[in-house]
């Protein structure tokens, strides 16, 4: 199997001449889990969006809520790539690294571009913290940062000084550090502070002192930038807004977009929505969003377990609502039997899977695309179900609507796949006009739909329409009493029927219905509809594939990007389209699942490019993989992309070698979680 060496330095940004403004910048904020780095990143993202730059983000945090302070595995990071051109990924190596403690520096420094800027809070570089980060010598003093521009100063002290007038205790004062840092970042990229100040006032409405202290910290960080510029490596950079289609914009994460899409889908179907959920990372955010949208006819139900969540949603669908449930891989596994019941009783249901690294509990906060087999094949019996995959946070909106449409029009459960990356990442989103979507009003049967031998009206709960869908019959409708269930049923009456010919016909009918779901023809999103190489992706690999194909094409390579939304059934023209290429490369964050599906469906010799380190593909990795199809060396195509030290999640994070506990025990009376200098 061919493998790819990790590219050391191949930025998404084309090298710019010195003193020229680059068209994109990658910034990574890294600190302790308790340092508020995700909040800082989120607010910086908002400010970036308001400045009109395109952007993509990558939040990365440990699975533990408050991992021991100062440790390598407690590091939380937030990366943002933004620019004055279209941005499709969270960026490869960062240009700027903000490291709030030694552990954050240790974990993230390998990612920083040579010559990149690292901003360091020296206030946290105590002996104790250096030990926890496993630094034998202080990196600020041993020359190990020589390859970078270093701006090291005591942010902690600066913050404490700035918030002094507000009389906060030392601990509370230090909590403003992230706002101080954000202020500095705002200065660096020439951003107004007003929206942040406004946000802080709103957030701490009931605690005006805290609001004022945070604003003072923000202002102080900003002011520091101006002073530091005169002497140090700091330069102010203004990235002009990206040319974008006219319209109203906001930022959206995948979890928000799914929630909004579900609400829109229920409205387009003219149905109240019932959402059954159970807390699980990274899917819970959808439950949280929907719980606040009750005025849209949304009922949210936090069930006792994953099984109850889907069963209650199915019960609601049976009673005439649009049932929706959501989870991540392990929870989806638990829901499997109920999906079979939804398939058997032919009731609409939307199941959202925000995939994470597996198997079992796996990597709860990291991303992977390894539930594709589970989505397409993972149920007992011949249990076909439509599957749709969103390619980006904003795309999840349209995909959720599409899932609702198919569920309602075809009386079937539908699986919507996103992943941890899409769920958490934010990007600008042109706010769509809901009236631009075609409604698909659901119809509940009102009267008997068949005739018996004597010509009298009779109810046939399983009589299919031209789409193969059975009628939706709400309990409470006079005269239409009937029984359904998970046992094989007669092809018209729905009464129990195990007879061989009937089971054959019902199996065929269920399969034909799903096979016949109307799916738009597959388009080529970049490049020609035939040629030397097609790079075929699905889900969140869209961004890096798109950029890699773009760059390869700029170098003159005959390569196209095809990104599949409808995983099951596949677009009718996909086989034909793929056969128009000499080679097909399928990059996936799994061991080759979609590749196998494509091979099975079309007998095409699709090559797999896999990455299962919990890290998304980098553009450079894909570019290198594409190049192998054109290097004249046969047999080196495809393979496995190794873990990448430049990327989030970083290497040292998440690993406990057992020495931490000993270190903590050696200092009796000092719990590891209370280590503030």
């Amino acid at each position, binding site marked *: 199997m061919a493998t790819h060496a990790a590219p050391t330095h191949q930025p998404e940004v084309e090298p710019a001449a010195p003193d020229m403004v680059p068209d994109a910048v990658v910034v990574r904020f890294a600190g302790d889990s308790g340092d508020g780095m995700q909040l800082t990143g989120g607010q910086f993202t*908002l400010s970036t969006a308001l400045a009109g730059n395109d952007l993509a983000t990558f939040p990365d945090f440990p699975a533990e809520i408050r991992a021991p302070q100062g440790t390598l595995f407690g590091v939380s990071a937030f990366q943002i790539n933004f620019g004055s051109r279209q941005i499709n990924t969270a960026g490869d190596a960062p240009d700027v690294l903000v490291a709030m403690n030694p552990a954050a520096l240790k974990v993230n420094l390998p990612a920083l571009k040579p010559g990149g800027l690292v901003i360091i809070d020296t206030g946290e570089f105590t002996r104790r913290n250096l030990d926890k980060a496993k630094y034998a010598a202080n990196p600020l003093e041993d020359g190990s940062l020589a390859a970078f521009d270093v701006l090291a100063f005591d942010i902690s002290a600066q913050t404490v000084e700035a918030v002094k007038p507000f009389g906060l205790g030392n601990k509370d004062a230090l909590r403003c550090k992230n706002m101080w840092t954000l202020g500095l970042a705002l200065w660096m990229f020439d951003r107004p502070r007003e929206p942040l100040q406004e946000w802080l006032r709103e957030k701490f409405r009931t605690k005006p002192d805290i609001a004022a202290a945070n604003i003072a910290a923000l202002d102080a960080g900003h002011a520091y930038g101006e002073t530091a510029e005169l002497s140090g490596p700091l330069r102010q950079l203004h990235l002009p807004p990206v040319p974008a289609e006219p319209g109203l914009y906001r930022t959206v994460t995948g979890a928000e977009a799914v929630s909004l899409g579900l609400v829109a889908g229920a409205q387009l179907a003219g149905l109240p929505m019932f959402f059954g959920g159970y807390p699980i990372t990274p899917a819970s955010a959808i439950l949280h969003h929907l719980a606040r949208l009750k*005025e849209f006819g949304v009922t949210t139900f936090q069930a006792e377990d994953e099984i109850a969540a889907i069963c209650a949603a199915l*019960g609601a669908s049976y009673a005439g*609502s649009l049932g929706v449930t959501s989870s991540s891989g392990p929870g989806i596994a638990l829901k499997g039997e109920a999906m079979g019941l939804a398939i058997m009783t032919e009731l609409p249901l939307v199941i959202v899977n925000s995939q994470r690294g597996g198997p079992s509990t796996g990597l709860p906060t990291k991303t992977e695309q390894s539930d594709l087999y589970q989505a397409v094949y993972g149920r007992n019996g011949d249990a076909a179900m439509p599957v749709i995959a969103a390619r980006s946070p*904003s795309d999840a909106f349209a995909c959720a609507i599409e899932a609702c449409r198919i569920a309602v029009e075809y009386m079937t459960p539908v699986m919507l796949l996103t992943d941890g990356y899409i769920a958490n990442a934010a990007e600008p989103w042109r706010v769509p006009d809901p009236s*631009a979507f075609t409604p698909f009003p659901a119809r509940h049967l009102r009267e008997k739909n068949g005739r018996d031998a004597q010509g009298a009206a009779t109810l046939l709960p399983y009589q299919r329409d031209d789409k193969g869908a059975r009628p939706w019959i709400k309990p*409470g409708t*006079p005269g239409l009493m009937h029984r359904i*269930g998970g046992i094989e049923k007669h092809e018209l009456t729905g009464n129990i029927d195990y007879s061989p010919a009937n089971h054959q016909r019902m199996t065929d009918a269920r399969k034909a219905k799903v096979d016949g779901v109307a799916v738009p023809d597959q388009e080529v*999103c970049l490049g020609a509809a035939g040629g030397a190489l097609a790079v075929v992706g699905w889900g969140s690999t869209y961004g890096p594939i798109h950029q890699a194909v773009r760059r390869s094409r700029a170098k003159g390579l005959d390569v196209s990007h095809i990104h599949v939304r409808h995983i099951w059934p596949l677009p009718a023209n996909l086989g034909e389209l793929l056969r128009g290429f000499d080679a097909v490369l399928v990059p996936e964050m799994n061991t080759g699942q979609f590749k196998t599906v494509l091979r099975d469906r079309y007998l095409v010799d699709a090559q797999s490019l896999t990455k299962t380190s919990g890290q998304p593909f980098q553009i450079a990795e894909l570019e290198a993989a594409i190049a192998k199809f054109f290097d004249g060396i046969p047999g080196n195509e495809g393979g496995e992309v190794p873990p990448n030290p430049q990327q989030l999640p970083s290497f040292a994070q998440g690993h406990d070698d057992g020495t931490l506990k000993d270190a903590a025990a050696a200092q009796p009376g000092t719990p590891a979680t209370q280590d503030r200098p």
Partner: protein
Amino acid sequence: MNAPARIETTLKDWETDQEVRWCPGCGDYAILKAVQRTLPQLGSDPANTVFISGIGCSSRFPYYIESYGFHTIHGRAPAVATGVKLANPDLDVWLITGDGDGLSIGGNHMLHVLRRNVNMQILLFNNEIYGLTKGQYSPTSREGTRSPSSPIGSVDHPANPCAFALGAGARFVARGFDVSRHLPDVLMAAHAHQGAAFVEIFQNCVVYNKDVFNDFAQPKGAEDRQLWLTDGEPMLFAGGTRGLALDTDTLSLRVVEVSGGDWQAAGVLVHIPRNRMLAHLLVEMPFGPFPMALGVIYDDPRPTFESAVVAERTKASEGKTADLARLLAKGQTWTVPGSAADPVGSSVAGQGGPDL
């Protein structure tokens, strides 16, 4: 929930065209008849009635009742029923389950449907055996039960369904048995209760656990072994010659002799269905030294889950309009000026993306 209009029906109206497929002599037949007799008395509307079941012999029940019916999957009926009830609180939901379905594979859901107090009648057919899978011992089987999976006798301690229900927070707990003439009265009381009403029905599995309840259910000597509870009445049995009194030293019940009908002198307790402590004592009474407590053991309604959910939704929606366009544009937004001729975002359904 609005009180629905009474509908005039007969027992026949509640029979389906499907042949009943339980073993001849199975207690399920008697329960089916009791339910079909009760529904007309309740004035129930078949169109508004839903029978929801899990898996097992008892769970075939919905196929034989001419109403709406949903035969779901093993153990999950309480969850499905909860969704049905939340989506349409006006439906009259009956949940049919068994000892394996409701207390083994579905024990968790049973716990939560009772705790949440979703308004429905829950009929747990307890035959102390797995019938449909051919006779393995169940979570209510008595210790030492010989079965294909416990050839020299089971060693598990059995669960006590009514004690489980009370522990889970049920506000209505009752007991009956398949062939009892009182069963319709118990079902009526369960239906009258607003909230989750738990009814354990001892049911004779004539094939795998024949007559296991005969010790108290057989007509001969029933008087001495059955204590039928009535609200406000003394807890007497054996033709009024014996009763239950409280032993205040051990805080437990004891059987006392009543002479000449003077139950007060004997210290016999009066049944108060709202008394939760008393309910606990009654369901924990070991059969043998004590009679089997039957009828409504506990009945103390409180607001239902679905009414709370509806109220919450109404409150949360107050003064808000369901304006989707406004919702989508919520938060901090910015405008890219231009002709604005095309109001649709760049991510509408389709495969291609904008390629600037």
